[in-house]
């Protein structure tokens, strides 16, 4: 009898624990958005600069993202209607941000509708998330016009040089 109860307890507990065990990182969520955006013809990658412009714009409506989250996502925000305090949106200021897919989907859906009267495209979400991930860090971004492939072509040889130097150094010291 007690074994049955124990098993039942484990099953019930796991039902509650399982969803929470699936935490993501902002980078993983950005990758998911990128996968979605790549399906659109002409996709050339995300841009934090474009995301910043998007974040501050009113898009023809009453609100911008800044209306509640302020101009600087490192800051605490305030609800434009209820004045409730909103914790910072930038992952650098708030480690909980962009760690749960369901939560990200819910709030993008709701708030894009609030600001733009429509859903945000994957391009827009990726740009905004890139901006938010860059906020509060020393990240310097490459020009937004550069295609992703060109950037990779620059990075790869450099990485190869670094790797070669590292292995040479290792051989020398062993």
């Amino acid at each position, binding site marked *: 009898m007690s074994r049955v109860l124990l098993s039942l307890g484990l099953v019930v507990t796991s039902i509650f624990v399982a969803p929470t065990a699936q935490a993501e990182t902002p980078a993983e969520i950005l990758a998911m958005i990128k996968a979605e955006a790549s399906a659109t013809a002409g996709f050339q990658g995300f841009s934090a600069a474009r995301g910043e412009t998007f974040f501050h714009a009113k898009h023809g409506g*009453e609100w911008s993202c800044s209306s*509640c989250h302020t101009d600087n996502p490192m800051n605490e925000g305030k*609800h434009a*209607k*209820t004045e*409730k*305090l909103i914790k910072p949106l930038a992952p650098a200021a708030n480690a909980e941000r962009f760690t749960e897919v369901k*939560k990200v989907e819910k709030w993008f859906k*709701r708030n894009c*509708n609030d600001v733009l009267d429509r859903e945000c495209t994957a391009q827009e979400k990726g740009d905004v998330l890139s901006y938010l991930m860059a906020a509060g860090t020393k990240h310097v971004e490459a020009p937004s016009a550069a295609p992703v492939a060109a950037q990779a072509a620059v990075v790869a040889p450099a990485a190869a040089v670094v790797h070669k130097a590292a292995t040479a150094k290792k051989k020398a010291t062993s």
Partner: protein
Amino acid sequence: MSQKILVWDAPTRVFHWVQALCFLGAYLTSDSEKTRDIHVALGYILFGLIVFRLLWGFIGTRYAKFSSFVYGPSKIISYLVALFKDKAEHYVGHNPVGSVAIWLLLSGGLTLGVTGVMLLQDDVADIVEDIHGYATNAMLAVIAVHLLGVFMSSFLHKENLVRAMITGFKPGEASLGIKCAYNWLAAVMLLIVVGFGVYYLK
């Protein structure tokens, strides 16, 4: 034969219809941050009305009193069985199955109010919002059953239960009616509700 007797007092009726409207309005304004202030105002009114109803359930008129519609499981089941056999006994006040709906709706509304107020605070765990959502869905399910039950009972007993909840009157024996409608209290309730709405949304 039976005549029209007063069954539902005015505060109970005002409570019923205003909280139904508040629930509907709050539901429709739940998805947007732009209507968050309206949602909160309606939520506060709903919460206040439920607190009133909980008090009125102890000091109110005969059929509003909780003691008049507390039924044991066997009574509830036998009424449900009889209902589907078209043989349900006629109750002047809430019938056993209807009363279950009321308990569930009052608990659900209370849960919504408490979690709602918690959600207005600056530091709230995500689970509070989840509970707020679950309670809403549970209420919707019970409301659907409640509406079905009202129409089934109305049809079965050939009485207009919706109209009875507006006017307060139902056919019945004179001795079973309540004496006072407490119209003045209903008027006070409406004043407070409207006053609060205007004050909050200014």
